[in-house]
């Protein structure tokens, strides 16, 4: 049996949409998922939608542009700003570059947003469709095996994905309406698209993740992938070590003696600090475990646990660690 069977399953469709509320670590998960795919020989493109472009920073690469650039071996990235997608659409479809200065002015973009809510979302999804069709709007050729979409934050995410489905007040006429049908086909085809959710083990993020997951399934009919839970405190301290720093003086003496054997002098203050950290970790773990249980009850998809990173910021080494965790847990799915 192929040992990577379940990693392949996780990476199965080409388009992966990573959803979640702001601040839960969607970009980190997108980057880690991209590394997993790249490790398995896939050429990956991570699409950031209308954001500051924090993804390239994780890879130590330059800021992204509207066309894909290679961030690290096998991992490409691009940042699709709604304004750029709109300008490209008007240029390609209507040859309107002559007045493009006006078209990209913020008031005009605001106008189009109000006049046709959902249009910009449709154009951004259109860019993803082009990537999937292995070409760009101006005829360039792409060949990505995996496309990971770092979706807009939860508030906007449902509107973003539902824009082509005509569920909202979106564009109801013209060529865009027809083009939207291709996007709906792309999003709702389980062989082409899957949506993952990202959460943290806290009350609000869990509640919102359950709501997002329901909306993706019931309203948008997009196949559900995994749920990634970020920032889980790891179990560093075993139960016996935890007990040893409680009020048991014999056990405390044991720790002091063990320290002395390696020339480590521990006084009561040191032991109290060790006890306090152990207690803090275990109480946070209990809170997180409670929220994880609520998440497990509220959603159907498999849950992948990602650790709280006790490190000085998040860069490539940390993303590699998260990718290890994802690979390992995918094997157990």
């Amino acid at each position, binding site marked *: 049996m192929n040992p990577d069977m379940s990693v392949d399953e996780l990476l199965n469709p080409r388009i992966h949409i990573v959803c979640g509320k*702001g*601040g839960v670590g969607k970009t980190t998960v997108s980057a880690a998922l991209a590394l997993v795919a790249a490790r398995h020989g896939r050429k990956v493109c991570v699409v950031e939608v209308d954001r*500051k472009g924090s993804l390239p920073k994780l890879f130590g690469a330059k800021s992204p542009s509207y066309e894909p650039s290679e961030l690290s071996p096998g991992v490409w990235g691009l940042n699709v700003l709604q304004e750029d997608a709109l300008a490209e659409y*008007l240029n390609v479809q*209507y040859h*309107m570059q002559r*007045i493009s200065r*006006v078209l990209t*002015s913020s008031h*005009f973009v*605001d*106008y*189009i*947003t*109000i*006049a*046709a*809510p959902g*249009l910009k979302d449709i154009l951004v999804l259109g860019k993803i469709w082009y990537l999937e069709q292995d070409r760009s709007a101006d005829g360039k050729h792409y060949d990505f095996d995996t496309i990971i979409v770092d979706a807009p934050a939860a*508030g906007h995410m449902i509107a973003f994905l539902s824009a082509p489905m005509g569920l909202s*007040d979106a*564009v*109801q*006429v*013209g*060529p865009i309406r027809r083009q939207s049908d291709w996007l709906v086909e792309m999003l709702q085809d389980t062989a082409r698209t899957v949506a993952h959710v990202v959460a943290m083990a806290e*009350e*609000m993020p869990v*509640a*919102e993740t359950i709501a997002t997951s329901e909306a993706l399934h019931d309203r948008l009919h997009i196949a559900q992938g995994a749920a990634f839970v970020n920032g889980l405190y790891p179990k*560093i*301290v*075993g139960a016996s*070590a935890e007990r*040893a*720093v409680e009020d048991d003086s014999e*056990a405390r003496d*044991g*720790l002091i*003696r*063990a*320290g002395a*054997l*390696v*020339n*480590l002098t521990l006084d009561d*203050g040191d032991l*109290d*600090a*060790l006890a*306090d*950290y*152990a207690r803090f*970790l275990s*109480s*946070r773990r209990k*809170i997180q475990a409670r929220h994880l249980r609520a998440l497990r009850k509220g959603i159907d998809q498999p849950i992948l646990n990602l650790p709280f990173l*006790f*490190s*000085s910021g998040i860069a490539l080494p940390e993303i590699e660690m998260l990718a290890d965790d994802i690979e390992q847990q995918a094997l157990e799915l």
Partner: protein
Amino acid sequence: MNPIAEITGHKEIIVCAGAGGVGKTTTAAAIAVRAAAEGKKTAVVTIDPARRLASSLGLKELSNEPTLVSKRKFAAAGLDLKGELHALMLDTKSTFDEVVLRYAPTEQQARRIIANRFYRNISGTLSGTQEYMAMEKLYELHAGGAYDLIVIDTPPTRNALDFLDAPRRLTDFLESRVLRWFLLPYVKAGGGFMRFANVAAVAFLRVVKRIVGGSVLDDTAEFFANLDGMYDGFKARARDVAALLQSEAASFVVITSPAEESVLEATYFASRLNEAHLAFGALVVNRVHPRFGDGSGATPRQQARLASGDEAARRLAQLLDNEASFMRIVRLEDKNLKALARKVPRHRWVHVPYLEREAVDLDGLAVIAAHLFA
């Protein structure tokens, strides 16, 4: 003196701002609970559509109009209530409708605008509208004079500028010269293509018509026609709102976690407040990891020897390993907060540590308040 206690004592308006997910709504609620308990007639306004504020105050739901939190609920949480606490949740759309009703010359004209599809889309899609309406609601509550103190949280903006510039952004949009250049000919021609308009505008209108359909253009034309004559009212009100926020009555509380991203946002926000002549009242640093002892720890060599020792040694290795993990976070948070201290003086800071319980009810809010007012 504690800066939160100071502004709660002297100000009439407290605006809570900061990046998403740092605890703005909870902080606003905790300040309001304490102020009400101490005798102020207080209103807390949330922008957050989640039901968290309602449920933490023991209410089923909140609306655009104030709901009173009963004395009984305070008593059940062991709190003595000397004042009153009212809670509201901003409804952007109805607040906008109220604004239109106020400035339209006739009610009929206001109704025409409110029924217009282009108008209906504005409140849901034009960024900055929610922020503007929050400030509008704040102004209205303050002008009503019913409250000693109004505490409001702000939307999770991607960018602090969105919130500070919102009123101008909306009025600028409604008055946009670019839009008028394109749309006015259409408006004047009563929806038909015009003879005197410039060539570019005609080309533009054709494209827009193909993309969004002619009916949307008709809606736009009707909207702008009906809006004529209301700009001055809008602008005057936007000026009044700005003046209120800049006045002695108002103070801003910036909320941050010790994580780098939210510290950067808080630093930026504090400097923007200064530029905009808005009073910076306090900085709330939320969810700082605890620090215990002096964190001297063990050398890697000692650690390795402990890890391969007997059971007591292995236990000690785990505990030291755990402490070392926290020390890395503590050092990182220290570094981030030091950078913040260079921009915001420490005597304006208030710390709320990572608590063992979450603030899901009045008790929990009171615990947070105890830290905020410590």
